[in-house]
């Protein structure tokens, strides 16, 4: 702000910040406040007539008491998907950054290519891939990997697979950006200083790619925890995540206060975990 004032003068600085400030107030601050007040309102009301703000803390206890399995499942699925994304994404990002040569650009375009079609359509096609009489299930059965009555669709595997697939690009891009910045000479210097290939990875490449690892895991884990499309399309009632519950509470049950309370719980949990994680990874300067 001070530097903006120096460059543009006092009034111009306010004018420049104005649009963004109004935008944030309208579409972030205001909904946020509305969410908080609704979460503390009496559930006796309804969406048409509105809810009375009675500072009803019980909403939170009830939401937590009734829906904790959904929260837990969300964290578990998102966690597994994030780890899978990290492993798959790291290998690919490493290959693109150091081994792709002139194919680099092509490979990067391929990584983002899925974004050219809708998230929904892509998830629906996974439904076909994992279908009970689809080629994948048939093949796995033929190979005795899946039992005769086994299925993939409507299992946790399908949900986690869907999450992994959908969020993989969000992992690859920050990883690539970090890896690409590493001077290959550092790898050679480490080799010259008696580091075996594994030690070179552990002592040089991995630590230098940490900003990408942290960025990628956050970009994957946060939206994956709140996701409901994958569980909705690929899962079953037994694999529902917290997003599905919040959606159901808002739409089918019209129970806005409990839905809001559950949303706030999810948000607080994620913020707390992110802060802890970032501190642990020693990359505070990212925030």
């Amino acid at each position: 702000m001070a530097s903006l004032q120096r460059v543009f003068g006092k009034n111009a600085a306010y004018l420049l910040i104005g649009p963004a400030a109004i935008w944030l107030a309208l579409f972030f601050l205001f909904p946020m406040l509305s969410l908080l007040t609704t979460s503390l309102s009496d559930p006796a009301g309804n969406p048409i007539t509105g809810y009375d703000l009675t500072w009803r803390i019980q909403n939170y206890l009830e939401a937590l008491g009734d829906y904790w399995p959904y929260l837990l499942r969300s964290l578990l699925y998102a966690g597994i998907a994030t780890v899978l994304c990290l492993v798959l994404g790291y290998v690919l990002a490493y290959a693109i950054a150091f081994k792709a040569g002139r194919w680099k650009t092509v490979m990067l375009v391929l990584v983002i290519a899925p974004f050219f079609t809708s998230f929904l359509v892509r998830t629906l096609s996974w439904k076909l891939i994992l279908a009970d009489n689809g080629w994948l299930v048939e093949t796995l059965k033929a190979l005795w990997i899946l039992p005769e009555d086994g299925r993939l669709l409507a299992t946790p595997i399908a949900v986690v697979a869907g999450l992994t697939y959908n969020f993989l690009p969000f992992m690859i891009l920050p990883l690539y950006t970090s890896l690409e910045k590493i001077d290959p000479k550092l790898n050679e210097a480490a080799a010259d200083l008696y580091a075996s290939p594994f030690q070179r990875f552990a002592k040089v490449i991995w630590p230098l790619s940490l900003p990408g690892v942290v960025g990628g895991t956050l970009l994957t884990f946060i939206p994956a925890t709140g996701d409901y499309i994958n569980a909705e399309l690929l899962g079953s009632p037994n694999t529902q995540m917290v997003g599905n519950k919040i959606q159901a509470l808002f739409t089918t049950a019209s129970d806005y206060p409990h839905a809001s309370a559950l949303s706030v719980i999810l948000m607080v949990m994620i913020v707390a975990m992110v802060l802890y994680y970032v501190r642990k990874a020693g990359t505070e300067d990212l925030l």
Partner: protein
Amino acid sequence: MSPAEQAHGDLKLSGLHKRYPNGFTAVKSLDLVIPQGSFFALLGPSGCGKTTTLRMVAGLETPTAGTIEIGANDITHEKPYKRPVNTVFQNYALFPHLTIAENVEFGPKRRGVKDTRSQVKEILELTELTEQAAKKPAQLSGGQQQRVALARALINRPEVLLLDEPLGALDLKLRRAMQMELKRIQEEVGLTFVHVTHDQEEAMTMADTVAVMNEGRIEQLGTPYDLYTNPRTTFVANFLGRSNLVKGTVLGREGSGDDEVVKVDMHGTVVSIKAGRVHTDSSEGWIGIRPEKVLIQPAGTPVDAPGGYFAGAVVTEASYMGTSTEYRLRMPWGQELICFEQNTGRRGGLVPVGTQVDVSWRPEFAFLLDSSQDAEAGLEED
């Protein structure tokens, strides 16, 4: 410890050849023996294959043909991390996420040394980095980073230390200071240093032995004194200092043993060149003489050199440079020669442009090169 780590002795490159996948041959059948404990300089213009040679010794590039030995051990196909060789990289390649102390102890740690503290302390003292131990590379100046790169390699006490233009990124003053510093450190630790540079002055002041490299080959190898006073090719004559090269026709040999000389006709004047300084068999050659060996005297006054002199030269340019003056002389046959003269005060001033002068030199300083070589080879294009 693998056998390669016990390797001990001279570094020997035999028929070392490198052809890159794109078809470019950067190093052509190099043969070289670098004695243990020597300060060896590999000198050559940019792109002549110096870095490629070092990378093959370090194991970072695979030779197309040839072998690399240290003492009796062939390390040609040894993994880089198993060679008793360390490198100071051209742009240092310090680990940005580690402190100076961690950078320095990287090598010993990987080799399983448990307590590196005393080693680190010692090497940081040697390179005057004790104060910087806890800093990150980005917080250091260029000269300090250079010393970290050196300390990080030296701490391993390699059989051979490879330095790839280690001073190239420093400004002139710091470079001169670091040259002395490197020399001192080498003498103190007694390891074999292979120092790559394109700066002839740097190579000459620092190294015991200099190999002049050109287009993937060694042109000549010897002490700085030998190379400078008795170059074998026009490339060496021009790249190492400057030379006047004058066409001459070989008349024949006279005398024997140390006194054997080759008589050469140089535009009508017969000059004698010691047989040991003649590097051609053909009937024509380039007579070479270093500019500071060229003596001039205004026509009519006696010349301070034995033997004959050339009359009829004219001073066309005089550049005063403080300690010395550079004269350009037009010889009767039209060629321009360069003459450096110390400003001893003997003349009481400069020789004015346009003065008719007699030109001479002591015959023992001349050398004769092959006339098929390009007289401009090794001159910096600028």
